[in-house]
């Protein structure tokens, strides 16, 4: 018994079909509870007022935007090394979800920046590198859609994901030479005096878990759809041959 057994599409469909309902329910529960707690049951910040509550969407979305890319990187590596089709399809399924999280992070950041910094957009290293991350997501998705042969597309996008990761990381740190921004450093610093108050921290943790579960649930749904689409494609081709 090893984890690679789930790389078999049939095994994966069985297990993911059983996992999906509880994961989805848990995702709705945690994300819903976290957001309601964060939006309605926390006090207003003494300086930022109620705009501080954007943090409960902004931080988890930003976290998942990066984690989704890391997940795609791992899945691409597994595909390149072990040639498991489910892995390639999971990477493909994750990309639009990751792009959506990136755009949510950018949009909520703009909504927050307007009242707090007085500007919708600032060419800050963090903001700019997120914009660049969105471009990498778009290029990755576009390459998947452009190549017709699914195995070729999986190989090419996996190589792109590897190389893109290197350049995204270099860009992130290169931008620090270019402009010192408005965005604060770590949001969840544990250093004394910088740590967020427990009243905000606990619902935030819950939201982060909730968003991660939402990602897993969406990933399962989308991977299952990709597998079904691939089967349908194979069936249609076989029929055309016959």
């Amino acid at each position, binding site marked *: 018994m090893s984890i690679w057994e789930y790389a078999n599409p049939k095994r994966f469909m069985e297990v993911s079909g059983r996992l999906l309902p509880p994961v989805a329910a848990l995702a709705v529960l945690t994300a819903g509870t976290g957001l309601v707690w964060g939006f309605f049951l926390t006090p207003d910040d003494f300086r930022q007022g109620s705009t501080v509550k954007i943090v409960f969407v902004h931080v988890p979305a930003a976290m998942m935007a990066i984690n989704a890319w890391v997940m795609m990187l791992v899945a691409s590596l597994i595909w390149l090394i072990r040639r498991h089709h489910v892995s390639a399809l999971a990477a493909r399924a994750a990309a639009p979800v990751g792009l959506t999280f990136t755009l949510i992070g950018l949009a909520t950041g703009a909504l927050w920046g307007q009242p707090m910094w007085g500007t919708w957009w600032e060419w800050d290293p963090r903001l700019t590198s997120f914009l*660049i991350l969105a*471009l*990498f997501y*778009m*290029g990755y998705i*576009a*390459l998947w859609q*452009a*190549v017709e042969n699914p195995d*070729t597309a999986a*190989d*090419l996008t996996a*190589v*792109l994901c*590897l*190389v*893109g990761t*290197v*350049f*995204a990381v*270099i*860009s992130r740190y*290169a*931008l620090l*030479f*270019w402009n010192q921004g408005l965005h604060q450093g770590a949001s969840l610093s544990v250093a004394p005096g910088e740590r967020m108050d427990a009243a905000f921290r606990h619902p935030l943790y819950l939201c982060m878990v909730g968003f991660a579960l939402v990602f897993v649930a969406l990933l399962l749904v989308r991977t299952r759809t990709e597998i079904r689409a691939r089967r349908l494609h194979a069936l249609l081709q076989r029929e055309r041959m016959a």
Partner: protein
Amino acid sequence: MRAVFLRDLAIAVRAGGGAGLALAFFLIVVVLLPLGIGPDTGALARVAPGLLWVAALLACLLSLDRIFALDAEDGSLDLIATAPVPMEGVVAAKAAAHWVVTGLPLTLAAPALGVLLNLPGPAYGWLAASLALGTPALSAIGAFGAALTVGLKRGGLLLSLLVLPMYVPTLLFGALAVVRGAAGLDAATPLLLLAGITLGSAAVLPVAAAAAIRINLR
């Protein structure tokens, strides 16, 4: 490898090869942008470093699809792939040829165009140095993008979407070196980092590009 390099150069230089096109495009962009920005020389001097670098980048982008597309169309890429030369070497030779045809002329022409944009005096040396160090990275990254899209019929727009985000660090350090040079500051640090990106790209990307070509030829 040398044969591939010389062959690509010969094809580019001959009639219809389009060797001068990138340079002409560079010139046109540099002429058009002040028309959009306005003739104020002070404003132009301030944006000149970034403008010249972005124009060089776009001019380089324009000719990328020629690196592999023509060879893939007439089948010579398959022949090269079966030749007893590693594909990595072929990619490196082709990227080098692309640089000689686009990056090198751009580097040589950029100071002249800097005059058009009223680039401050101390910046010229840094402009030439940063382009000389940075454009090889543009060719290497571009060769990787071209290798990814070589099997596609309409890969042009996709190629720019794939390649341009990867140009960010090169553009950033290149333009930063010129900006610092224009302000009379020492620009050695961004220049060194730029050289690092170029060397890293030249070392790693031919391998990735060769992998992409092998996948596309499968």
